[in-house]
């Protein structure tokens, strides 16, 4: 429903009659509108509010609630129409407040309230309820309904996160439409008929959608409530501020709501360029982690083999001494910084200034699980470029799992026939159903798959039809990223006009890189140097390499080899246990600034509550550390830290080693390791509502491979490479390609990373029965 506003440039040019411009009259006022626009959308630009429940500007209208009735003058006198289904027309005369209209609107509201329990005092929606508000503004003021109201069991859980109260439901079709039309998870639907019509899930199938929280937000009554917020606050006690979600790099606009200095809810906010108002459940409900008891609240230093609380001055002094001694004894190359994607742009900038001042050369914001930062220097595309492109090519991880709202946007583009998606994947992804072509390849065979596709005349013709955007990211952690680079290069060489939407997933990765937290030495070479004893001081900037770097053995050796480890973090993690100094950082919503999303768009971050304990924003830690070190980085406040995009060095292709994958032994399965939305990420496991949702460690094979192996589904199997083996539970999964094995990354249970080696191009595993 975006309305194209004329830009200032166009205003100055000659007046051209726009063939799509329509002028109509609403309550005597002339309103300019676009052809195809609905009356209710046009009226929203005036001061005349038309009451509504089922209409939502981001979904198709259904005309279900009938609340938005207005009168339109016609040849046979005024006609009563629903304004959410009636498009504007030139010269149309609309009345939204005549006696007839008022009577009709009051009549509908009385009918909606007839069976609605008036339990507003105990309803979570009370105070922010469209039904309550519009009953006051457009209702009859009194009900004549004396019959007994509908009764249902209430509330019933329809998923792990959402409860449904069918008595409060006014059957507006918003949640069910969202589920089928926007999320593509049609798991809730109307059942029964007439007065017994109700929203329900299908038998034994919960509303297990990654986007279920949006239904709670768009519910115009208190029928849908979310477990993390139920009975936690009254809307009038909430204070709110707009911010941006940093759970992944999409950068969804959010509203942070708090009460008594505690974050109680995130709501989606509509940003035309990014999230269209939607959030994924992980981003929506991981606010719980901010309130976790588990946070670092005070600095810690290692004394006698354990970390003990101390003062900031002591901790900073120890940290500064460590850094100073490292630089003076082994040179600036012996101090390394890992991480930075958790930070705001300003924080990253302060740390980059400090690193530059000290002459450090070993820092990387990624953790060897992404792609080269060269991707930011390729010709760039925005999300809107991708969703309006003729063709989108996915050389990326499963977007539904890793960048969920980007999945929603691309799904929308594909289902509305704007965009054709060509997907290259090792495993059926969330977008496979909507892809025009889905090309499966075995790990290592990406380049061959792309080359074959480019030779396909149908695909080549499609790519010649218009804009092509490549969504580029790391699909498989058990495969060299050079294969992806090669595949991209093959396309970019054949079609030099392609643009790239880089999907490095971690929060503010793009901002950290732009601020200067990436050096010529990447995480793998830093960890290798540490494992060889060349790193005196390793600074972990909100990074947990023990959980995130694919090569587990390398990280263990690196953390053992580094002389000192300084951790700047919000939560205790596997890696912070190894730290000699812990500096507690302020968490999301406890510090302001800006963040940069995957498109390079700079978006606001807001502070809503005070930081827990004595934790501080990262930029402040860097500044104080600089002061202790006598390094003048010229920062006195956050305003000195405007993030500066490093002048982009334009690249057309990525550097990629000329590697090719070895042949696969037919007894082996080629390993695919990728992420699920719910894993051991610290913000997920410290959010009680989300902690139980991860699927757990396991190995997933195509049923035909399972049949061939004669392996028992649901039982433990031995998964081995030529060097090592792990025990994992076996599952059958049709979406896994024959000849491959899929293992979700970073899940509770056995760690598949035992089998990964950073230098392996691909990983082949053998699956054997234990008995």
């Amino acid at each position, binding site marked *: 429903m975006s309305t194209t506003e004329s830009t200032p440039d166009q205003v100055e040019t000659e007046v051209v009659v726009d063939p799509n411009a329509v002028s109509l009259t609403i309550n005597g006022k002339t309103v300019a509108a676009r052809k195809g626009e609905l009356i209710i959308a046009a009226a929203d630009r005036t001061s005349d509010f038309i009451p509504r429940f089922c209409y939502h500007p981001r979904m198709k209208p*259904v*005309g*279900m*609630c*009938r*609340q938005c*009735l207005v009168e339109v003058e016609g040849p046979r006198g005024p*006609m*009563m129409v*629903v304004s959410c*289904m*009636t*498009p504007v027309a030139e010269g149309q005369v609309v009345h939204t407040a005549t006696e*007839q209209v008022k*009577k*009709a609107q009051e*009549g*509908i509201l*009385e*009918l*909606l309230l*007839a*069976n609605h329990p008036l339990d507003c005092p105990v309803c979570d929606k009370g105070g922010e309820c469209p039904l309550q508000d519009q009953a006051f503004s457009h209702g009859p003021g009194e009900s*004549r*309904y004396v*019959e007994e109201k509908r009764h249902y069991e209430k509330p019933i859980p329809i998923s792990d996160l959402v409860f449904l109260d069918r008595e409060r439901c*006014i*059957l507006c*079709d918003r949640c069910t439409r969202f589920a089928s039309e926007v999320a593509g998870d049609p798991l809730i*639907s*109307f059942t*029964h*008929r*007439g*007065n*017994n*019509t109700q929203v329900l899930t299908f038998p034994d199938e919960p509303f297990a959608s990654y986007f279920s929280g949006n239904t709670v937000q768009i519910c115009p009554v208190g029928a849908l409530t979310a477990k993390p917020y139920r009975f936690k606050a009254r809307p009038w006690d909430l204070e709110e501020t707009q911010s941006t979600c940093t759970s992944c790099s999409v950068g969804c606009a959010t509203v942070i709501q708090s009460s008594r200095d505690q974050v109680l809810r995130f709501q989606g906010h509509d940003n035309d360029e990014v999230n269209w108002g939607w959030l994924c459940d992980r981003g929506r409900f991981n606010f719980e982690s901010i309130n976790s008891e588990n946070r670092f609240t005070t600095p810690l230093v290692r004394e006698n083999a354990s970390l003990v609380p101390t003062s900031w001055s002591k901790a900073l002094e120890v940290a500064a001494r460590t850094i100073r001694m490292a630089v003076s004894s082994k040179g600036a190359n012996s101090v390394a910084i890992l991480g930075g994607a958790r930070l705001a742009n300003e924080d990253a900038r302060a740390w980059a200034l400090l690193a530059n001042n000290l002459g450090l050369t070993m820092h990387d914001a990624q953790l060897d699980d992404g792609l080269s930062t060269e991707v930011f220097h390729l010709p760039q595309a925005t999300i809107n470029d991708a969703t309006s492109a003729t063709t989108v090519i996915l050389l990326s991880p499963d977007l539904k799992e890793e960048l969920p709202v980007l999945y929603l946007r691309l799904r929308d583009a594909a289902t509305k026939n704007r965009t054709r998606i060509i997907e290259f994947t090792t495993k059926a992804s969330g977008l496979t159903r909507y892809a025009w072509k889905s090309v499966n390849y075995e790990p290592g065979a990406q380049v061959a798959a792309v080359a074959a596709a480019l030779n396909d005349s149908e695909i080549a013709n499609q790519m010649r039809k218009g804009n092509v955007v490549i969504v580029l990211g790391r699909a498989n952690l058990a495969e060299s990223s050079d294969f992806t680079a090669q595949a991209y290069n093959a396309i970019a060489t054949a079609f030099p006009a392609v643009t790239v939407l880089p999907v490095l997933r971690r929060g503010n990765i793009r901002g950290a890189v732009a601020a200067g937290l990436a050096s010529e030495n990447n995480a793998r070479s830093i960890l290798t140097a540490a494992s060889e004893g060349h790193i005196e001081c390793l600074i972990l900037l909100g990074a947990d390499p023990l959980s995130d770097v694919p090569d587990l053995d390398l990280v263990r050796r690196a953390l053992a080899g580094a002389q000192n480890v300084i951790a700047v973090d919000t939560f205790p993690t596997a890696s912070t246990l190894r730290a000699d100094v812990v500096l507690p950082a302020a968490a999301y919503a406890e510090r302001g600034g800006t963040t940069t999303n995957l498109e390079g768009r700079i978006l606001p971050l807001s502070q809503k509550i005070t930081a827990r304990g004595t934790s501080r924003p990262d930029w402040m830690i860097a500044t104080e550390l600089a002061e202790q070190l006598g390094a003048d980085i010229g920062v006195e406040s956050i305003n000195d830290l405007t993030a500066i995009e490093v002048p982009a060095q334009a690249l057309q292709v990525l550097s990629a080693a000329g590697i090719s994958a070895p042949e696969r032994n037919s007894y082996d399965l080629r390993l695919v390791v990728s992420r699920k939305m719910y894993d051991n990420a610290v913000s997920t496991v410290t959010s009680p509502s989300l902690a139980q949702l991860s699927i757990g460690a396991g190995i997933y094979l195509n049923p035909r491979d399972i049949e061939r192996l004669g392996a028992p589904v649901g039982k433990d199997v031995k998964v081995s490479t030529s060097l090592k083996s792990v025990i994992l539970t076996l599952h059958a999964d049709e979406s896994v390609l024959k000849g491959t094995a899929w293992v979700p990354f970073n899940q509770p249970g056995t760690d598949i990373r035992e089998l990964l080696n950073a230098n392996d191009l691909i990983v082949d595993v053998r699956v054997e029965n234990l008995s």
Partner: protein
Amino acid sequence: MTSTYAHAPGFVAGDRPKIVTSRFEFSDSYTIERYLATNGYAGLRAALAQPATSVHDEVKNATVLGRGGAGFPAGTKWGLTPQEVWPRYLVVNGDESEPGTYKDRLLMERDPHQLIEGCLIACYSAGLSRCFLYIRGEMALAQERVATALNEAYAAGYVGKNILGSKFSVDIVLHWGAGAYVVGEETALIESLEGNRGMPRLKPPFFPAANGLYGQPTIVNNVETLANLPWLLCNGSEAYTAIGTKTSPGTRMVAVSGHVKRPGVFEIINGVTTFRDLLYGEEFCGGIRNDNQLKAFVPGGGSAPWFTPDQLDLPFEASQVGPAGSMLGSGAIMVMDHTTDIPAAALTLTRFYAHESCGKCTPCREGGTWLERILTRVVEGTGTDADLDQLIEVGSSICPGDFPHASNADLGLAAVPFPYKMTTICFVGPSAYAPVHSALTLFRSEFEARVTTRKRIPVTAVANSTAGYAS
């Protein structure tokens, strides 16, 4: 082998013209043998012998009015599809479920080949290659007979590829409904055919002719409408328009139920036969049962506003019935004699529509049941006079403005012409209100006799009870 029904239900011999019921007298009327022996598939042959456009012209010239309820001319409907958008479909609405209506059921049970031939002619004329025949879920015999007939027709080469050696090919797909009244509404029927919950779509943008089944142009026709086509093609539009009046040519089937001596389905002459002919004529219903007094009748299916004896002399002509305050609808007459309990009769109809609401539009979903509850109270004798006004109030939320009703000399009422305004997408909501409104307008005294006058609780009593709690 063939014998006639001794007393065929709905069939009365006579010299009236018979267009669609001509084979009803045969006990084996549904077989292909009988059909072929009685000029069957001759209309299809006649159609195939001429260009499709001239078949379309023939249907347009004959002004075959839609028999489903709205009475829209079929030939005009076929011409509304956008040019050069393919594929396009024919959907046959055999989900006949309007209370009192059972004419299509008989057409499908007694003469399924006539319907199939009609479908083929329509497809040929409008250039359609696929036809979906949607039959109401409860009509087991009709489903069985149509399925058998379709198999026979396929085997005999009347349906399928290169019909009768021509280049014309059509497939007919059978579909049984799952039992929902609202699916008789064409857009809800299309939703149901697509495998969705049967709920109406809003027009615009979902005019089936432009955006129907699977988003393609779709012609939705009633069973009886299509059953007229074989005769029309055999005899020509002039012969067709010679029957009936200029605006309502041909015949139409009318299903009569209720308090008449001989209820049944009758093929009457459009625009000519009057309600009096039908109810009292010896060749039709033969009068009111036990020679009782006629009290009221529903002229066009359960959702039509009621008529009283004042309207008996109206002919079956939409242009006269509409201004008189009702509609001909689906051709179902329900007759009530003077012993009828009017509030109970209204409740029976309203309960049906409240139950059959699909639940989409608020006024129908909530209002229908509210009407039913109030009316139940009134019929059970526990209602108050305020309830009667409340019925009208609830109804005005479904149908704002004046609701159509018949004139009545005794009450000094002038007619309010059809149609009504409505706040719902389809006619189910207003249909729940129509019997309530007619009954209350024409027979208010019967309601008043059932209710008690509401007594206000004296203010002092309220004050006393509050004081009691306080102490």
